[in-house]
């Protein structure tokens, strides 16, 4: 047992920081308060994880919150990505001379919403109960919708409205599915023992009525699937990602989607324990394959950098879902590992892409050329990140994809694995086509702005993410692998 309730502190930190930001007298204070919030919560997450690794799981007395290895994985990537984007925001819009400067009180609002967004996502990770989980996820929608619409441009309003409506509708479904699960538990043991605490549900799993659970799964998958960006429910995703401020896009793509998948994983943990029940597997594989294939086609014809990256998120959520569908130790391990890798890689690309479009004054890749010669540092990061995202070894994404494919071939799902490979090949082609057009070429066709910019925070943020992108492919630190293994155990026992 630890000295301090780290889990509660972790929830408190962003809120406190947000409060500080709201009363911050100057940009400097606001920025530093936000960054401090990010740093502290990251430290708390690390402390929490060390406890989880030693003790197994941390529970809060009322049983509403609990942190086990699975939520640990989510917390880890949330902490990393959150810290990175908070830090990046400082350079991005934190000062008067930033590429996208905003007034002080809008800056306050921005930081506040980001921190609240972080809070809700932490809550998602710590919730011990499907109901609370739902509330937290809906909370993320509300905060992030405000962030997506942060710029009051027409496009921003449009994007945020679509985002709000679609995700809310989806989440109503999710709530309904949750209710049905509750109903199922009620049906098995009567009103007295009914619960939404998944530790309880897991014990009840063998007794649950498959019919009800299937119905529940339909609603849950549509609900959380919308949020996770599974095709064809992904339609809000490119709009939101392309219109939000870049750090928020990073946060959405790297953090939010994972939260939704995490919710589905919690459900999966229940259904895998139901004898002879494989409906969830079907849904995971089906949605996964559909997402990967559709995303591949979208990527081929996408010219806008941020939308391109958004479709890549769809693709990678598909890969993760396929990994979960393949199941088994290998599949789940690959999927969880892929969650971390994709989060880091995608965040890196969004942030570096932010630099690119800030200096090229456009997000249209067809208009950029010769970026590698014009911006060596950013160009290199984009190049490496892009290759990593496309699944080129020895970067981390390749390793997790390799594990997932291996799981597929080992479990005999040859067709699914082959389709996945096909889609990956198309995606690779598409990404390379767009990326190389922008990076290569002798001289930029249009002038890059050579105004000296603040780069300290940018460098720090990228420096935080880049090692994960590059290093994790070959060298998985044993604590992390231990965490992942325990998380896999949490899901499929």
């Amino acid at each position, binding site marked *: 047992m630890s000295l301090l309730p780290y889990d509660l502190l972790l929830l408190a930190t962003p809120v406190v920081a947000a409060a500080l930001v709201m009363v911050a007298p100057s940009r400097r204070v606001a920025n530093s308060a936000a960054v401090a919030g990010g740093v502290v919560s990251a430290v708390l997450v690390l402390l929490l994880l060390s406890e989880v690794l030693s003790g197994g799981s941390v529970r809060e007395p009322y049983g509403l919150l609990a942190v086990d290895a699975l939520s640990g994985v989510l917390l880890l990537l949330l902490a990393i990505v959150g810290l990175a984007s908070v830090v990046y925001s400082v350079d991005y819009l934190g000062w008067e001379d930033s590429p996208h400067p905003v007034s002080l009180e809008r800056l306050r609002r921005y930081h506040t919403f980001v921190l609240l967004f972080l809070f809700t996502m932490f809550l998602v990770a710590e919730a011990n109960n499907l109901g609370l989980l739902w509330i937290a996820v809906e909370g993320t929608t509300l905060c992030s*919708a405000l962030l997506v619409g942060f710029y009051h441009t027409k496009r921003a*309003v*449009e994007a945020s409205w679509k985002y709000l409506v679609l995700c809310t509708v989806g989440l*109503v479904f999710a709530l309904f599915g949750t209710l049905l699960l509750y109903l199922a538990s009620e049906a098995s043991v009567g009103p007295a023992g009914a619960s939404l605490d998944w530790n309880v549900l897991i014990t009840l799993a063998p007794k649950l009525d498959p019919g009800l659970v299937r119905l529940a799964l339909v609603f849950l998958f549509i609900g959380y699937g919308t949020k996770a960006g599974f095709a064809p429910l992904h339609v809000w995703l*490119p709009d939101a990602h392309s219109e939000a401020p870049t750090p928020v896009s990073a946060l959405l793509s790297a953090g939010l989607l994972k939260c939704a998948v995490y919710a589905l994983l919690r459900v999966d943990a229940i259904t895998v324990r139901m004898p002879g029940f494989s409906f969830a597997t079907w849904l995971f594989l089906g949605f996964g394959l559909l997402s990967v294939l559709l995303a591949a086609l979208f990527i081929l014809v996408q010219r806008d950098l941020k939308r391109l990256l958004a479709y890549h998120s769809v693709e990678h959520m598909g890969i993760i879902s396929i990994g979960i569908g393949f199941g088994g130790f290998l599949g789940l391990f690959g999927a969880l590992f892929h969650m971390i890798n994709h989060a880091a890689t995608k965040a890196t690309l969004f942030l570096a892409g932010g630099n690119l479009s800030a200096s090229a004054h456009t997000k249209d890749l067809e208009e950029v050329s010769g970026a590698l010669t014009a911006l060596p540092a950013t160009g290199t990061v984009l190049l490496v990140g892009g290759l990593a995202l496309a699944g080129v070894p020895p970067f981390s994404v390749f390793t997790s994809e390799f594990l997932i494919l291996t799981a597929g071939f080992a479990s005999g799902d040859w067709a699914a694995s082959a389709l996945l490979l096909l889609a990956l090949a198309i995606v690779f082609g598409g990404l390379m086509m767009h990326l190389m057009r922008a990076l290569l070429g002798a001289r930029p066709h249009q002038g890059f702005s050579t105004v000296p910019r603040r780069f300290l925070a940018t460098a720090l943020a990228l420096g935080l993410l880049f090692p994960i992108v590059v290093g994790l492919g070959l060298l998985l630190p044993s604590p992390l692998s231990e965490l992942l293994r325990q998380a896999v155990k949490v899901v499929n026992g």
Partner: protein
Amino acid sequence: MSLAPGQQLLEVLAAVVLVTSWISLVHRRVAALVRLYAAQSAAMAAVAGLVAYLYNAPILYLTGATIFGLNAVLIPTVLLRLQRDLRVPDEVNMLVSVRTSGLAGLGCLLLAVAVVGPLTPYAEIPAAGLLPISVTVVLIGLFLTSTRRKAFTQVIGMLVMANGVFLAGLALTFGLGLLLELGVAANLLILAIVGRLFLFRMKDSFDTVDADALRALEG
């Protein structure tokens, strides 16, 4: 035996919820939709109270009160004010004809029955028969959201969906426990606020609340 009349009352209230949503499917005036929603919520509140009484689940009184205060009074008034402030024209413009909407409502019911019907009835759970109704209401809400042009009416559609879910929650599970109830309610409230905010922004930037005007982002 003594439960029978209460059960029937429950069924009736559920029917009211169903019918209100149906009417809102075929009605052409926005304000009427809001009022229908208010009525529906009131019926929901009644359901909550009744269930609380029948199965002595005191928490549900509170829930009922919340629903009444929030869904039946607060939100509708907010919406009507909003309609006035935004000068939302009062006629609902639909993407599909009224007849189709009506038939769609029927279809929702049939689908719900077809899907939920075969599920084994649960002796322990009273009013399991309400499940199809709540599914229907959810579907109708979804239909409203997706076939009404005005963003304003989309909001109403979402609220109707939420009501459907609440119906299931109340009638089948005696609620999820106080904390969760409040959490859900709070979410609903925030949703309303945020929705209102965006509606204002939309009015500012597009000078209309017609969701069809939002077509800039594609591909």
